[in-house]
């Protein structure tokens, strides 16, 4: 499943050829490894208008061992090392006129950005603006950031975080995520944070230490990657999959020191059995990842009821039923629980031959948004992650042409890896991510589909 084209484009002769022919030149992305510093180089922080986050961001980055530089001047004067990240505090915007200062800061800084660099813009949500002019300025950032993401090369990404007044305390976890290698394939995204009570003193290397996590569909592919990453971050993983996948499931569980639970999540007694297992063996659960999913593709006009119903049962109804049962069961879902639901790019953009799948995955988004307030009340969160083109055994079976096109039509010009989805889920599962709730985070390299 190696990306032969990416490897070729990064080889000596490949670099020359792709440059001369103007072919895409996908980069080798910076991905997270334990012990890695937050950034491979310094960060530069600037403001548009009179923002309120700059000092906090500076302290946060310095606390993480990052050197923070002063902004590069418009005439291109250098200030030491090239930055690995450019952060813009845009919380001071009052009208579109203020955007000029955003441009003034970003243009020279982004020009000097290292490969696999990060552009992160922090702003107030447009919906909470006090005037149409302010709303316009805030919304303008959307277009700005998404366009920067499309202009960046060399594996760099640009993302926007909405920070309403009062939610500043929730900022650390998303900022760390978007700057780190964990967000390698998350590009051109807008994520909102809200105020939340967060635990103090999180272990950055093992943020899930002592936590119990359930991952459905964990026997292979993206589910196995999620299980591995959650275990790497310190969680005890209860790996769930259908009984027929038990052999692969046991291997995953044994690799990560977790436990295997063979369970058909669509069975009527599945919620009761899962809850009994969690209660008896672990006393409760902190993290639930609804990853299990199936495809039964056919054009709508040719789709039979069995295809429709089985996809809905696994991909949507089971997520609803298990989540509801966990909410109802006394003392099983821990107060700071994190539920992460796997949606899909198909659920956002639609996909030919996938009316059932796309409907189920769009349904997941509706479910997450509707449940978010109730989760917030229990100091818990529920979010969705929507993978784009992720290189798995399944995509390896696609015809070469379809696969190549599918994997290149995004700003990073390559398919993502299961670990990219897993890292995003593991981030949302962190205790410190309590301010991220009801969000849909795409892991798609800023795919052109449904953007």
């Amino acid at each position, binding site marked *: 499943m190696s990306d032969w084209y990416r490897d070729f484009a990064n080889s000596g002769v490949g670099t020359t050829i792709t440059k001369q022919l103007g072919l895409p030149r996908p980069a080798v992305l910076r991905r997270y490894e334990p012990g890695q510093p937050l950034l491979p180089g310094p960060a530069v922080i600037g403001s548009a208008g009179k923002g309120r986050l700059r000092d906090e961001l500076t302290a946060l980055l310095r606390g993480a061992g990052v050197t923070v530089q002063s902004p590069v001047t418009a005439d291109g004067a250098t200030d030491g090392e090239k930055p690995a990240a450019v952060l813009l505090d845009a919380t001071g915007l009052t009208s579109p006129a203020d955007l000029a200062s955003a441009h003034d800061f970003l243009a020279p800084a982004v020009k000097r950005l290292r490969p696999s660099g990060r552009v992160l813009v922090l702003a107030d949500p447009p919906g909470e603006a006090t005037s149409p002019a302010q709303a316009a300025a805030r919304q303008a950032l959307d277009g700005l950031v998404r366009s920067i993401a499309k202009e960046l090369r060399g594996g760099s990404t640009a993302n926007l975080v909405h920070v309403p007044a009062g939610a500043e305390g929730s900022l650390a976890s998303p900022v760390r995520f978007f700057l780190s290698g964990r967000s390698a394939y998350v590009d051109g995204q807008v994520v909102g944070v809200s105020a939340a009570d967060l635990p103090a003193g999180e272990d950055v290397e093992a943020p899930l230490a002592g936590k119990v996590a359930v991952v459905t569909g964990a026997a292979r592919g993206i589910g196995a990657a999620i299980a591995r990453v959650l275990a790497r971050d310190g969680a005890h993983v209860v790996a769930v999959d259908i009984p027929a996948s038990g052999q692969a*499931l046991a291997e995953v569980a044994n690799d990560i*020191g977790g436990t295997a639970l063979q*369970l058909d999540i669509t069975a009527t007694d599945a919620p009761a059995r899962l809850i009994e297992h969690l209660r008896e063996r672990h006393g409760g659960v902190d993290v639930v990842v609804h990853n299990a999913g199936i495809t039964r593709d056919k054009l709508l006009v040719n789709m039979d009821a069995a295809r429709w119903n089985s996809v809905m049962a696994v991909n949507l109804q089971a997520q609803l039923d298990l989540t509801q049962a966990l909410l109802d069961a006394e003392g099983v879902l821990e107060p700071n629980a994190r539920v992460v639901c796997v949606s899909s790019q198909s659920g956002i953009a639609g996909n030919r031959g996938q009316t059932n799948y796309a409907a189920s995955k769009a349904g997941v988004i509706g479910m997450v948004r509707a449940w978010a307030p109730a989760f917030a009340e229990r100091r818990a969160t529920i979010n969705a992650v929507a993978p784009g083109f992720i290189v798995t055994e399944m995509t390896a079976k696609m015809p070469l042409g379809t696969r190549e096109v599918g994997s290149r039509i995004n700003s990073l010009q390559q398919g993502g890896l299961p670990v990219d989805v897993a890292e995003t889920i593991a981030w949302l599962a962190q205790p410190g991510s309590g301010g991220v709730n009801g969000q849909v985070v795409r892991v798609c390299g800023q795919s052109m589909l449904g953007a």
Partner: protein
Amino acid sequence: MAAQTRKAAIVGGNRIPFARSNSAYARASNQDMLTATLDGLVARFGLQGQRVGEVVAGAVLKHSRDFNLTRESVLGSRLSAATPAYDVQQACGTGLEAAILVANKIALGQIESGIAGGVDTTSDAPLAVNEDLRRVLISLNNATTLQQRLKALSGIRPNQLAPEIPRNAEPRTGLAMGDHAAITAKEWEIGREEQDELTVRSHRNLAAAYDRGFFDDLVTPFLGLSRDQNLRPDSTVEKLATLKPVFGKGEGATMTAANSTPLTDGASTVLLGSDEWAAEHGLPVLAHLVDAQTAAVDYVHGGEGLLMAPAYAMPVMLARNGLSLQDFDFYEVHEAFASTVLSTLKAWEDPAFCKERLGLDAALGSIDRAKLNVNGSSLAAGHPFAATGGRIVASLAKMLHEAGPGKRGLISICAAGGQGVVAVLES
């Protein structure tokens, strides 16, 4: 040594689906199957890198290279390499005997946890060189001079190329086990129809158990198989009636390929521990192993059936525990042959047998058939000799756990050599 004994807890089990001989597991060795089964157990109970007190398992058909089969399987598994292990062999009683041995050490406080198991393959069976050729080769190996070597080699004959093949036959009678069972079936006048009915019920019960997810936490798929290969959910008495008998002779022959267990490959394991050990590890206690008993009969000269020993073991165990045969919620009588189950039940119902052979004042009586092998048994699942005991112990423990506290289950397993093993479990 502990001043008092304690009852060992059965925490759970794992087995691989049983495969028909020379089929799905044709290329898997005993060690492959036992290792995979241990790894499935490790995954189910989170035992990675842990040292359990002891792993006890065995195989009936065993290659000479597998002298340390269980220990080698442990070394290849995800358990700590510091886990001791040893092999046992008591024919078809191996798996249950292994569980008894582990439970006894736990009861004595010598170990806190242990795994009992068994494995057998009739596909990857050991072939030995011809006995004459073996002697020649040993002489050749011992020879020191050229003259001695030539003399040893001169003993080789073409007919020595035929290998020694393990046979499912009693060494002292030369009869296949099925032929022995047929003699017993005739003695006890066990009819064809009742055997076929028992067989169909075994298949239907096993299929229903799979369908309701009973085996979800007892079985881990292996080499593409996720259910027992011998299972025929659509089996009917009418269909079975069309089969020709394969054991016994002439008009009265009743035993067919369906109401006898087929040759099978597979492995099973059971996790046992003290109650304290289970609690410390956050693991459930499904049931306790209360007591067990073995017996043997003289089937060569004594006029007793080869597979009738459990009938003798039972009253001894019942008396020791102050129980009657009717004091149980579930009965697991190993279905080596449908006729064996029926002969055994009939013997317990027979006042003359119970008086003359078992030395009892009255018959042990009949059991409620609705409590017999309720989730299927060997006729449907198959019977990889040493793996059957572990299959039954884990399944019965789960049944008792589901039924609630204070429920009792009985196990009866017959074995080659005229032996039998019985045990009581209680939730």
